[in-house]
């Protein structure tokens, strides 16, 4: 770098010669040098500022661009995070207590049409009608061409039908994936499962909603995406259910009944091992409700007699009067009761078929022979103001808490006022109606030692001990009375060597629509518990309008119809439930005879 001297000798000498101050030259030069230095520094500062500007500009551009990208892009899960294993599951499966599938989902396709993409609507309509028999070609063609742009054709179809539609080869025919509810066991446990159908429908998916039974009652649980992977475990046992339905069906056929219902329930946990109502339906193809407003609800196969069938359950109620009287200390099993006559006000009560059971019977015998008059006397000892709360505490006056959507609508019919006439009639199950399921729960309370049982369809292993309704001794005595009904009384057809059944028959006349009762239409019920020595299960069998024609005269009492059906159910299901029969000792053979 060439440095300009501040005091150039030539100019100094020249200045000195002319008498000027040489210092001015130095100052002038110093000033010029400072100016140059200042210019340089300014330029540098400007450059720095520019650089800083560039930095900030690019930083802000980066942030801005990122924000813009984030706001403009579709939200998406990072692809590498989390395994998407639950895609295929929309609605949770339903399985029985052993994990056997009762309801599951299947992937199928819905068919829809974008009419503006159709090349030849007439041909497509014709060929679709050939594939799907329920479609009508000309109607379909009219709908293709009436100006709409979108049209659903089928909600579900089989793979073969889908291939056939593919073969039509029209670009206007499109498929949307669908999860379809499938009940692989057909009509088995149809009334429990209910059925499902499609709710809101879109092109890519449709929601499956329950329409009846447990599918509707637990719809929220079944649709919960968090629990879609865990199947809903029911207390039903598929094998027992199938056996129960088979025997019930045979029984209904044999006794020419209009229908029937059977409930098998664990007395300790309240779990329902099997629940059947006949006639049944196929939940895969749920029939429509009856259109005729005059039809009885029981005429429809959709009607669940076990839960919705609110009948007068007849003499099966007698044990409640006896149990309550024992609980209150009014009677013991051996207390003699008047069975001669009973009148309340002007109403005279009589026995079934105008039997005469003699002047007195013990409480056990009253139950054994099913004496209306005897039970009426016991009920009058209790009194209506104590009887009604007791029946309520057994759950007989309220809708059953079971997980079925139909249960809420089936409230027992209970008289509003409770005079003595009602007290007497209620004691033998007339004048008030309840469902077989309520009856089963009440019998379970007696059978398990006196604690209330809440019937449930969900599998749980630990018993829920409800509030105590009866003392243990009374419950035990009541079961022994029920056992006497089978060994010596009206339910003698349930007597067998293998299993000790205890139960009570009930025959009630069917009420007419307009009032009064039918002469020749009855509802027969047999409520039983087994094994009698340590009850594990309660079985209620109800037959609607059964007739027994095996004897010389036509018989309609429960002892001849519901009881043999129940006995056969016990004989067939008890081994499946792991109950060992009482085995008669084998005849002595040579070897053991010598030993003895």
């Amino acid at each position, binding site marked *: 770098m060439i440095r300009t001297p501040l005091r150039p000798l030539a100019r100094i000498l020249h200045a000195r010669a002319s008498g000027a101050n040489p210092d001015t030259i130095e100052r002038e030069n110093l000033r010029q040098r400072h100016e140059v230095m200042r210019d340089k520094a300014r330029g540098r500062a400007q450059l720095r500022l520019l650089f800083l500007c560039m930095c900030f500009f690019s930083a802000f551009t980066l942030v801005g661009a990122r924000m813009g990208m984030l706001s403009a892009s579709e939200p998406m899960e990072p692809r*590498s995070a989390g395994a998407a294993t639950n895609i295929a599951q929309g609605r949770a499966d339903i399985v029985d207590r052993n994990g056997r599938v009762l309801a599951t989902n299947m992937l199928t396709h819905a068919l829809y049409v974008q009419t503006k993409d159709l090349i030849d609507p007439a041909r497509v309509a014709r060929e679709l009608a050939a594939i799907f028999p329920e479609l009508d070609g000309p109607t379909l063609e009219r709908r293709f061409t009436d100006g709409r742009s979108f049209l659903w054709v089928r909600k579900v179809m089989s793979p073969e039908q889908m291939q056939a539609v593919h073969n039509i080869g029209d670009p206007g025919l499109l498929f949307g994936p669908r999860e379809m509810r499938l009940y692989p*066991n057909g009509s088995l446990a149809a009334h429990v499962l209910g059925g499902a159908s499609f709710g809101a429908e879109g092109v890519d998916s449709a929601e499956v909603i329950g329409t009846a039974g447990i599918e509707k009652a637990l719809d929220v649980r079944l649709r919960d995406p968090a629990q879609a992977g865990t199947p809903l475990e029911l207390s039903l046992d598929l094998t027992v259910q199938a056996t129960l339905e*088979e025997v019930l069906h045979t029984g209904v056929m044999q006794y020419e009944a209009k229908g029937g219902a059977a409930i098998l329930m664990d007395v300790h946990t309240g779990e329902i091992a099997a629940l059947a109502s006949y006639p049944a339906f196929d939940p895969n193809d749920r029939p429509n409700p009856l259109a005729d407003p005059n039809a009885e609800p029981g005429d429809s196969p959709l009607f669940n007699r076990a839960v919705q069938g609110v009948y007068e359950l007849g003499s099966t109620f007698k044990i409640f009067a006896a149990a309550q009287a024992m609980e209150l200390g009014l009677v013991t099993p051996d207390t003699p009761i008047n069975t001669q006559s009973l009148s309340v006000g002007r109403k005279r009560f009589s026995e079934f078929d105008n039997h005469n059971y003699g002047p007195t019977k013990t409480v056990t015998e009253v139950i054994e022979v099913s004496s209306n008059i005897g039970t009426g006397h016991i009920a009058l000892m209790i009194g209506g103001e104590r009887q009604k709360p007791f029946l309520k505490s057994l759950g007989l006056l309220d809708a059953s808490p079971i997980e079925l959507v139909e249960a809420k609508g089936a409230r027992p019919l209970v008289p509003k006022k409770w005079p003595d006439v009602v007290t007497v009639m209620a004691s033998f199950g007339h004048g008030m109606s309840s469902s077989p399921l309520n009856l089963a729960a009440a019998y379970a309370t007696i059978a398990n030692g006196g604690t209330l049982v809440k019937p449930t369809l969900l599998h749980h292993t630990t018993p829920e001990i409800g509030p105590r309704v009866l003392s243990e001794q009374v419950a035990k005595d009541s079961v022994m009375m029920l056992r006497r009904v089978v060994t010596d009384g009206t339910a003698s057809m349930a007597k067998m060597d*293998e*299993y000790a059944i205890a139960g009570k028959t009930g025959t009630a006349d069917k009420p007419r629509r307009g009032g009064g009762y039918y002469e020749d239409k009855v509802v027969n019920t047999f409520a039983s518990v087994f094994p009698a020595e340590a009850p594990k299960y309660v079985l209620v069998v109800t037959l609607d309008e059964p007739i027994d024609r095996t004897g010389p005269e036509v018989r309609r009492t429960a002892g001849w119809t519901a009881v043999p059906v129940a006995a056969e159910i016990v004989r*067939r299901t008890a081994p499946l439930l792991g109950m060992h*029969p009482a085995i008669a000792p084998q005849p002595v053979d040579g070897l053991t005879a010598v030993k003895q």
Partner: protein
Amino acid sequence: MRPLLYVLSFLAVLGLGFWAYRENYTTQAALREVASLQDDIANLHESLAIQRAEWAYLNRPERLRDLAVLNFDRLGLLPMEPHQFGRAADVAYPPPPSIADGVSDGVSGLGIDQPMDTAGTLNADPEVQTP
């Protein structure tokens, strides 16, 4: 010294760039593989669900009952009934070993000196058997 540093850092940048480029493509390949695996898993889940449904359908009690009736002469299956239960005490003792079995010491006393077939064999013609 300084030029060497420049060259080295330049080479380092070059190397890192190459590494980043490769990592980028490996990651993308891995992501693609994960996506296709997840597609496979979803498909397998779907077919598993269908097969489970089909298994349940083929094992529905109604069909099994009909099959048991159809094949009664070969299988002899009957519904489970109480009279099929027995007492352990009623089971007969095995017949006493005969003299020909030789001395009874342990296993050899039972006459077992060869591996024996405990499962038994079906004597039916395999052609007749249905799956």
